[in-house]
């Protein structure tokens, strides 16, 4: 038989089917229903890993998520997942796994030499050395430490699988599908309420498996017949958050070689629960004794689980070291399965369990303890001695040492829900106290142990949560007594581990206490106790007990570190879900996007929007060629630009004008109907918030535009003041950014162009002057025409309901053909606005005032408005503040860069910085805008624009920011 440790019968494995897998390249077989751990044990593999610091040989220690040792690099290539617990990997045909943190091989690991100098590698040793010489840390010590630290290796490749996000609501969420959880679900489900049951394991039942299959099967059948009950196996609730909301991770295809098509690898659930029943069970804890980490040392309940669930003998000759009768029951399972029994070591002087064991013919060493183990890569025996005696010890031959120090109820999720934990004397552990949120605890997490009692407790909780009837059929059977003798550590010299993964020993804890790191959080951080991937599920309390003893206190009096999420490690990609790659953030496209694509535009991101940056033509030799061509078209003939992204807010109501007067620094109540006005808006702290033009369409109807970036924030700002500060005003707001497409037609031929297509509106300068607004049609499409300009040229903005955008745009393009109309993008737009000295996002940066930007005249003298009072603070009116200026390189061809600083030539004291630059079309060379201290007085002088990052310094002239048409005559012709 290829699996020498497989029992002939029993368990949830299908012996009729063989699954082939490899571990460290070596081929093995197992069966469906196996975990990688059970299959390796069935094949007699004992050594599966190396520890974190000392690289000691390690074996399979548990049968579940508490596993500290048996961590594998699971799968290979792009699907490699380091640190995967072999005890949770469901075996499948073709599975590939490898041990980790060893070199050159698992058996011959060079860094196991660390064990020889272990006394030097005591807790916190790295805080006391590696300090000389100072520069050696980064160059020598740290690279060595980093290389030897870490566990498995990441794939370094992109994940071929995908993940799904689920949103769920339920009346009752039950966490854990052992006897308590299943009974709770049955009762809650019968009430008709919406019930969800999450179980981290692949099959439901937990301790029922191999113990009470009949009740389990009947209950599962009953639950399957309830349409209001959702069963989620392979789903670990990883964290409990506010308001009874939990996060859970469902492993959808991890038990397969590869995900089938269109199937996510895992699902991330957010579950909003009315009530929560914690039926999370307990984790068995071990006992600290010398060399308790030897491969072959295993938790007693886990050794039993390997028999009951997997039909696997974890060894040939077993002994038990336990302080509780429940563990004895588990151990008897091994005997019943035909595993050789070496005996039981019990620190108690007398117990019912010992009597039962003797009746089974098992040797019991009462009042005794294990003081060491023998073997190197696998256990060969344990040394047993009487407690408190310095006499001789006996070496008992065994290849499996089952250990149980009692159980730790899995209180993590209850504790994260702010339920205080209480000390349970009988279990010597923490249990949930009175919950604050609508929650319940049932079964062993609630200190109710044994299948029958736990199920009854679950039924009780299910009834309490739903008002349902708790009278359901319950499993029967003897109740194993989980009462323990408080017994944490065998006090003899040696390496007695309290955190097996991170190589933390009881001596390390004592050293921490000796050095003053006595608080449990200090001791944890100093020693790294409980900071491994198992988060100290089985050893955490042992370390606390050792610390308590060192402090001369009781373990329950020194507290526990906070139970933070996650209960089990959570796949990064699952939480990221579909919001990655190009879907990381939504992409906003204008109604004209397809046209821009057809025209060959190069696009730029502006916030969530994707906008044309430029429209390269085949003849253009570089990007500047394109940008200058587009801008030149605007200055000399006509261009058209998609400005649909500007925020648009429709403001209506009797008090609309008053409302805008209070929001803007300038006045809108005096604005005639059919006219637009540029407006400036401050935050309440007196800093500029946004700018844009607002048009009056009727006495009680305004159309506000905002910058692209602030469309949302301005809307929120307006709603805030309207709803919370002036709720008495009769005003209604609607964001219409997406409803209207908008295009700007600019240049000396702008009127001549649009006159050909705009119908129903006299566009002559007299009838429709600068800042006029009117309704019209283009090709039968309704449009609103605004005579406003950002470029400084004669310009019109045409807005149309988004569905008409392309028709109107194409009509204008066709009309402009005679004038060689050019579409222009963001780059040319930026060029034009810099030439004109119009401010944009880099000047409206949330730290500038109106007078900083030469807009001081826009502040009205009378009446209140948002930002008025605080704008007059001395810091905001200081004449030394930087002011907006124009700059131009003295040597015309010389490039200047945005982000350069302005300094007096020959100095390094920054007096200002350049906010934007461009090559100009109206004048030669490079120009820019800058914010400069004493800017007004420096106009006409020369300074140095310096960019140490580029190693460049350019001599520049300080000028007015208005390079083009400072009188603003062009817009009025």
């Amino acid at each position, binding site marked *: 038989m290829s699996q020498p440790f497989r029992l002939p019968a029993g368990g949830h494995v299908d012996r009729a089917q063989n699954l082939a897998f490899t571990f460290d390249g070596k081929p093995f077989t197992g069966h469906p229903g196996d975990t990688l751990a059970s299959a390796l044990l069935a094949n007699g593999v004992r050594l599966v890993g190396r520890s974190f610091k000392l690289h000691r040989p390690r074996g399979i220690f548990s049968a579940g998520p508490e596993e500290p040792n048996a961590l594998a690099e699971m799968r290979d290539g792009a699907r490699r997942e380091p640190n995967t617990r072999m005890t949770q990997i469901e075996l499948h045909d073709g599975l590939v796994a490898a041990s980790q943190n060893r070199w050159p091989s698992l058996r011959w690991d060079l860094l196991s030499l660390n064990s020889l100098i272990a006394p030097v590698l005591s807790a916190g040793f790295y805080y006391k050395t590696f300090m000389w010489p100072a520069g050696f840390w980064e160059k020598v010590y740290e690279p060595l430490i980093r290389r030897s630290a870490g566990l498995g290796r990441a794939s370094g490749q992109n994940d071929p699988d995908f993940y799904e996000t689920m949103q769920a609501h339920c009346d009752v969420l039950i966490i854990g599908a052992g006897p308590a959880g299943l009974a709770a679900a049955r009762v809650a489900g019968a009430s008709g309420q919406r019930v969800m049951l999450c179980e981290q394991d692949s099959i439901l039942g937990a301790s029922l498996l191999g113990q009470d299959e009949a009740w389990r099967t009947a209950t599962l059948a009953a639950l399957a017949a309830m349409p209001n009950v959702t069963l989620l196996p392979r789903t670990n609730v990883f964290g409990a958050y*506010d*308001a009874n909301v939990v996060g859970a991770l469902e492993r959808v295809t991890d038990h397969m070689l590869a995900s089938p098509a269109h199937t996510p690898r895992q699902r991330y659930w957010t579950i909003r629960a009315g009530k929560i029943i914690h039926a999370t069970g307990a984790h068995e804890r071990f006992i600290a004794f010398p060399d308790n980490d030897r491969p072959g040392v295993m938790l007693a309940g886990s050794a039993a689980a390997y028999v009951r669930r997997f039909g696997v003998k974890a060894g040939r000759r077993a002994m038990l070291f336990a302080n509780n009768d429940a563990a004895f029951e588990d151990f008897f399972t091994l005997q019943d399965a035909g595993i050789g029994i070496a005996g039981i070591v019990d620190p108690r002087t007398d117990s019912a369990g010992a009597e039962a064991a003797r009746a089974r013919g098992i040797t019991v060493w009462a009042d005794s303890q294990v003081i060491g183990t023998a073997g190197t890569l696998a256990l060969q025996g344990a040394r047993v001695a009487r407690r408190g005696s310095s006499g001789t010890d006996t070496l008992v031959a065994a290849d499996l040492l089952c250990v149980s120090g009692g159980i730790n109820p899995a209180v993590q999720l209850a504790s994260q829900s702010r339920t205080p934990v209480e000390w349970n004397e009988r279990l010597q552990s923490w249990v949930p106290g009175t919950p604050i949120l609508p929650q319940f605890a049932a079964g062993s997490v609630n200190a109710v142990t044994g299948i029958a009692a736990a199920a009854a407790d679950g039924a009780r909780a299910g009834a309490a949560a739903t008002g349902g009837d708790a009278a359901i059929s319950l499993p029967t059977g003897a109740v194993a007594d989980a009462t323990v003798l408080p017994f944490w550590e065998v006090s003899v010299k040696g390496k007695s581990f309290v955190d097996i993964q991170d190589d933390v020993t009881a001596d390390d804890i004592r050293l921490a206490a000796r050095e003053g790191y006595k608080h449990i959080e200090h001791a944890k951080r100093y020693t790294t106790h409980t900071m491994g991937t198992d988060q100290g599920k089985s050893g955490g309390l042992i370390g606390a007990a050792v610390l308590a003893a060192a402090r001369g206190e009781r373990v329950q009096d020194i507290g526990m570190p906070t139970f933070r999420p996650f209960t089990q490690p959570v796949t990064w990609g699952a939480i990221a879900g579909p919001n990655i790659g190009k879907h990381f953030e939504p992409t906003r496209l204008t109604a004209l996007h397809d046209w821009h694509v057809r025209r060959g535009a190069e696009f730029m991101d502006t916030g969530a929007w994707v906008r044309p940056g430029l429209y390269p033509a085949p003849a253009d030799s570089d990007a500047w060629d394109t940008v200058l061509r587009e801008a030149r078209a605007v200055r000399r003939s006509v261009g058209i630009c998609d400005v649909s992204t500007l925020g648009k807010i429709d403001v209506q109501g009797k008090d609309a004008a008053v409302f805008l007067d209070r929001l803007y620094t300038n006045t809108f109540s005096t604005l005639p109907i059919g006219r637009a006005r540029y407006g400036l808006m401050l935050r*309440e*702290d007196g800093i500029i918030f946004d700018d844009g033009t607002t048009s009056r369409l009727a006495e009680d109807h305004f159309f506000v535009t905002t910058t692209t970036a602030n469309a949302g924030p301005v809307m929120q700002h307006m*709603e*805030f003041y309207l709803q*919370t500060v002036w709720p008495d005003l009769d005003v209604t707001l609607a964001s219409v950014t997406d409803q209207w497409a908008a295009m700007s037609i600019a240049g000396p031929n702008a009127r001549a162009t649009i006159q050909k297509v705009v119908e129903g509106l006299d566009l002559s300068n007299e009838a429709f002057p600068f800042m006029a607004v009117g309704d019209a049609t283009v090709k039968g499409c309704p449009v609103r025409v605004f005579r406003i300009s950002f470029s400084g040229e004669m310009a019109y903005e045409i807005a149309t309901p988004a569905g008409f955008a392309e028709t109107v745009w194409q009509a204008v393009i066709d009309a402009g053909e005679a004038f060689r109309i050019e579409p222009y993008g963001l780059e040319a737009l930026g060029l034009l606005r810099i030439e004109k000295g119009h401010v944009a996002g880099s000047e409206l940066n949330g730290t500038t005032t109106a007078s900083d930007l030469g807009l001081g005249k826009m502040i009205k003298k009378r009446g*209140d408005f948002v930002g008025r009072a605080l704008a007059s603070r001395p810091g905001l009116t200081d004449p030394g503040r930087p002011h907006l200026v124009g700059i131009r390189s003295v040597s015309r061809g010389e490039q200047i860069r945005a982000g350069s600083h302005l300094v007096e030539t020959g100095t390094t004291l920054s007096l200002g910085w350049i906010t934007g630059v461009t090559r100009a079309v109206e004048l030669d060379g490079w120009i820019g805008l800058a914010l400069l201290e004493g800017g007004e007085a420096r106009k006409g002088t020369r300074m140095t624009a310096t960019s140490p990052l580029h190693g460049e310094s350019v001599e520049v002239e300080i000028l007015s920011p208005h390079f083009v048409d400072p009188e603003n005559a062009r817009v009025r012709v």
Partner: protein
Amino acid sequence: MIRIDCPWCGMRDEAEFTYRGDATVTRPGANAPEEAFHDFVYARKNPRGWHVEWWYHSSGCRQYLKVVRHTMTHEVRTVARATETPEVPSE
């Protein structure tokens, strides 16, 4: 997850809302001194306990809500409309 029972839309996740801070400060009148505006913008009790705060239902009804929430437990006690004055528990 903070969950807010919007009086207009029903119980919703915090992700649908935009926070807007302390709702106990009120904007001074037009003629108030600069100091009063300073307090409106900057002076905060920042209580460890019950906090009355604005939440804007930005992905819902677009209404500002006055929420009474505890800054240690995160319990939401009351969700009121903007013009209401919800009761604040003493403890």
